[in-house]
């Protein structure tokens, strides 16, 4: 029991996490490539045509997983931020920092693909309904987080200040998620529900889940690769980094 605990703390130190991150990154990258390739093949060639939307609906195989990831990554970042504030661990802030660009990218993809779907289906590129507006706010929160980090020179102040911003922004996540239930929005409700039958064809559902898992693997791979560079940059004066032969000169 106690040795387990020690192991955990061992990996919370950047020096021991650095090589581990590489292994995780490579493994996830392989998984991501496979899953996304399979997922895309299924979305274009295997999944049946929708009875109403025809072929245009296929964009949801990117749109829905991207939207989920954009919200989920934010929650993960906020959890790291809270951990960093409470335990004063350096690695948690680095993890949040490494995840941010990926989260912002998914928020952007979600809005972009949604817009492409909305034009033929709804008849408009953009509406200011609650779901779409709150997702846009999420994108702004990601950008604000990255801007705040970049503006603060002292890394420790940057960690803590941006962590507070992340925690403040968490309010937005349930608003995005429940907006379609709380208000009569143009955006449809959730197809995949926790407490009711899924109103989606099985093949479509499987395709979507494969894409989602692929996006997960992608996010992990990219975040781990990025956290390695963040660790090197932040720990450049530490002796273990110098021993790697990367710093200096």
């Amino acid at each position: 029991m106690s040795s387990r605990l020690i192991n955990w703390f061992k990996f919370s130190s950047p020096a021991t996490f650095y090589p581990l991150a590489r292994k995780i990154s490579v493994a996830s990258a392989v998984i991501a490539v496979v899953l996304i390739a399979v997922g895309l093949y299924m979305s274009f060639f295997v999944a049946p045509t929708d009875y109403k939307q025809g072929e245009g609906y296929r964009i949801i195989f990117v749109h829905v997983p991207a939207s989920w990831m954009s919200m989920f990554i934010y929650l993960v970042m906020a959890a790291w931020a809270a951990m960093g504030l409470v335990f004063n661990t350096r690695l948690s802030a680095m993890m949040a920092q490494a995840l941010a660009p990926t989260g912002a990218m998914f928020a952007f993809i979600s809005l972009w693909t949604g817009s492409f779907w909305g034009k033929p289906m709804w008849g408009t590129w953009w509406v200011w309904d609650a779901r779409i507006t709150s997702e846009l706010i999420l994108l702004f929160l990601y950008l604000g987080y990255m801007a705040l980090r970049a503006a603060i020179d002292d890394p420790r102040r940057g960690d803590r200040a941006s962590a507070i911003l992340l925690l403040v922004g968490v309010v937005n996540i349930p608003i995005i998620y429940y907006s379609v239930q709380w208000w009569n929005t143009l955006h449809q409700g959730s197809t995949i529900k926790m407490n009711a039958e899924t109103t989606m064809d099985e093949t479509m559902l499987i395709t979507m889940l494969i894409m989602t898992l692929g996006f997960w693997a992608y996010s992990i791979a990219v975040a781990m690769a990025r956290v390695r560079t963040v660790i090197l940059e932040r720990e450049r004066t530490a002796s273990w980094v110098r021993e790697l032969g990367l710093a200096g000169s």
Partner: protein
Amino acid sequence: MKARHKRLGIIVVGLAALGLAAFLVLNALEGNLSYFFSPTEVAEGKAPADHIFRLGGLVEQGSVTRDAGSLTVKFVVTDMAQSVNVAYSGILPDLFAEGQGVIAQGRMGPDNVFIAEEVLAKHDETYMPPEVADALEKSGKMGERHPGSKPL
């Protein structure tokens, strides 16, 4: 000790205030915060008389008529209880069809016809292949799965 009591007091006041906030939100959600109005609400006079608003509902089966030589379309939007006549001239979205959900933005004109300036199709959260849809249609289960058929 005293500081701890103080902190406890702050927490109690804070929780009470958050409760009040939740009550106010629920109170607000019962009001007219919706993105659109249903035909029933229009019939009850809840929609603004002299102002742009959004009307949401289903396009009634067999109600769509097109004027020859122009883009003007006339149809009826219904929520199964009440219905409103709509006139629109412009390009309709792909998903626009009889029995499908729509949201029209515009204002009430004379003769109680809703003059739409923009018509958007409201999609539901159901995805299935056409064969399945046909089968459901034949067995008469389509309505059950169609969330749009409940009053919006």
